[in-house]
């Protein structure tokens, strides 16, 4: 007895349809569950503080702007505010991100292209995320480097990505719990 081949696509559609639906539901639920615990926090980013002449202004601004873009990308925070933004004044669950320059080495793109091992640009900052009461929730030294290809300013993008990853992976307390601990 020959199997009925005309039924094969129908059977496949019957199996694949619910499987696809299940996958979509799962993919939709995972990020929501992941972000739910800290979505109530908002964050305000302050520019890097450094002694005069230690960090060129273009690097300082590039770190600041890149970091804002990367923090929005993570989806971990309800709102990402810029330094001095009056809209952040009334926000109850606000974290403030401070960065202090630890080390800056300006490399040279031509040296990198010619030697491969020399001319790296490195930026290292001390990262501190604190609540309004000054209670530090995250503190870490983070570094951004450009070793092979790209312009010197690419190091700021690497640094911003590292900071955003650090904050994404950090386990922040629930806003109410943090307030109670501060009191």
């Amino acid at each position, binding site marked *: 007895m020959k199997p009925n081949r005309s039924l094969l696509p129908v059977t496949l559609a019957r199996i694949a349809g619910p499987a696809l639906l299940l996958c979509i539901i799962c993919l939709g639920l995972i990020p929501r569950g992941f972000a739910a615990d800290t979505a109530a926090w908002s964050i305000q980013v302050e520019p890097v503080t450094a002694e005069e002449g230690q960090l060129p202004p273009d690097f300082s601004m590039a770190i600041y702007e890149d970091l804002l873009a990367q923090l929005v990308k993570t989806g971990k925070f309800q709102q990402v505010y810029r330094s001095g933004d009056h809209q952040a004044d009334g926000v109850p669950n606000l974290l403030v991100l401070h960065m202090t320059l630890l080390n800056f080495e*300006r490399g040279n793109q031509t040296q990198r292209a010619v030697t491969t091992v020399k001319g790296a640009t490195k930026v290292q900052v001390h990262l501190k995320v604190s609540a309004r009461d000054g209670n530090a929730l995250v503190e870490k030294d983070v570094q951004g480097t450009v070793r092979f290809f790209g312009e010197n300013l690419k190091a700021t993008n690497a640094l911003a990505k590292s900071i955003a990853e650090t904050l994404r992976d950090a386990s922040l307390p629930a806003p109410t719990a943090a307030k109670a601990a501060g009191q």
Partner: protein
Amino acid sequence: MLIARATPRSCILLFLLPFSWICTSLFAQTANTANDSTAASGVRATHVLGLEGVKRNHHGTLTVQPSGLNFEAKGARSTIAIASIQDVFTGQDSRQTGGKVLTVAKMGVPYGGGRVLSLFSHEKVDSLTLEYRDANGALHGTVFTIPLGQAADLKKQLVALGAHASIPVESQPEKKDDGGNKQ
């Protein structure tokens, strides 16, 4: 008669004389064009980061107008009001020319020939960094790269129109070869 008496040395001199004259006139023409473009029709610039609504590494024209600093590119336009500018910085950097195409081509050259090419395919550029605040008081930063020697002129024009600059235009430190000084 003259041709019959000409030695090889005088032939070379006869060739070099008009050649050097052409080269000199060409360079003079380029310098004049650069100065004129700064004053009247704006400066060719690359938007590195920071302007809202303008993509990164977009090429366009920077113009200083009484209303503010105007950046115009294909399909994008942005203006920073003079009154909102908190600080203006200029600097210098060195970068590889040719973009991704030349980078890939250099990788394909055998026996490390690409590295030798890198030695000659770099240029120095000026950077112009602006710090400004929007209507909510939020701090923004933007960085442009412009042809060498034109950033100081732009800064002068901005300061003359009332933009704030923490480092005066007159106090320009000597230019370093490694790039990275700020004014």
